[in-house]
């Protein structure tokens, strides 16, 4: 049988009081944005984004001659080109290159169920081709995004632009 002495009750009270103080302090800490963070956040973000990812160079051509662009630039260009297509989201982009020559691109895309996939895929292909051509110009072989494989491995009911 457990006996509560005034001393043990006092200790328990203090423990409860301590736990309440910890909980209150934790809430205060969660709600706080460190003033030092406010000072450094923008500079830190800029420094982080200044770092460049390694990337392949891809041959391009315009009226003044041949040049190279980074594969990362092509990725961003494709993303921008496909962003306006509603109810679909780019998941991955894989370029097929022979040294620095563009041979093709594989776009992996999620689309919202139950929209007609083929029509959306046509729109995506058209946009992707336009986006790549804008950057690569009149290269040989010319930019094409022609083949289309539709593979259903999951069903997304919500808009894939905002949720998984």
């Amino acid at each position, binding site marked *: 049988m457990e006996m509560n002495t005034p001393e043990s009750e006092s200790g328990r009270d*203090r*423990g409860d*009081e301590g736990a309440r*103080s910890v909980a209150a302090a934790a809430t205060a800490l969660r709600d706080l944005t460190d003033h030092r963070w406010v000072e450094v956040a923008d500079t830190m973000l800029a420094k982080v984004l200044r770092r460049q990812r390694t990337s392949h160079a891809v041959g391009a051509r315009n009226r003044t001659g041949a040049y190279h662009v980074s594969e990362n630039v092509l990725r961003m260009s494709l993303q921008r080109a496909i962003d306006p297509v509603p109810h679909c*989201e780019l998941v991955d982009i894989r370029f097929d290159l022979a040294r620095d020559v563009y041979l093709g691109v594989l776009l992996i895309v999620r689309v919202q169920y139950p929209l007609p996939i083929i029509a959306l895929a046509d729109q995506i292909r058209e946009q992707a081709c336009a986006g790549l051509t804008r950057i690569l110009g009149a290269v040989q072989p010319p930019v094409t995004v022609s083949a289309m494989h539709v593979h259903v491995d999951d069903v997304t009911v919500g808009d894939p632009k905002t949720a*998984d």
Partner: protein
Amino acid sequence: MSSEAAPADLVPTQRRSDAILARRAALGDREAFAEIFRRHAPALFRYAVRMLDADHQAAEDAVQEALTKAWLKLDGFRGDSALRTWLFRLVANECVNSRRRRRPIPVDDQLLARLTPGTGDEPHRFTTEQELRDALDIALLELPWRQRAAWLLREIERLSYSEIAGILGTTPTVVRGQLQRARATLSVRMAQWR
């Protein structure tokens, strides 16, 4: 079919989920990464400051290094864990590296001696939230770092035991034990402060 959809179709970055932002940032979308930064970096900094004994400069370096790695390696993030958990793991690793570079301060894992109960009539010290936070920060400094990390990730960042275990490279059972000890120590310390 129209080749250019109306700009109104573009979704504001703030409405996108973490998983979508991570995928977009992996493809090079800087605005998506900036949104990840805005969502999670304040908490990462809060964690780093307390893991590095309130050394703000070291915390800043650790968070910057971790987020730089995140930016450069996001294409390797496969979404096996939540983005937030992955970011905390990067920061936790940087904090460990930072602590290794500093002179170690030995702390006994069986930390505290029993405290004499107070009389209960001491004047209350917590007149403001700031003082309360300061008291907690001092109490946290006394915790061994694994206990401190587990407590911060659970009680401040609301991560699950398994997420914390993933971040700290241990098991949920160990995390549970560390948390119990941390809670007990902090309760005693905060009671003593009042």
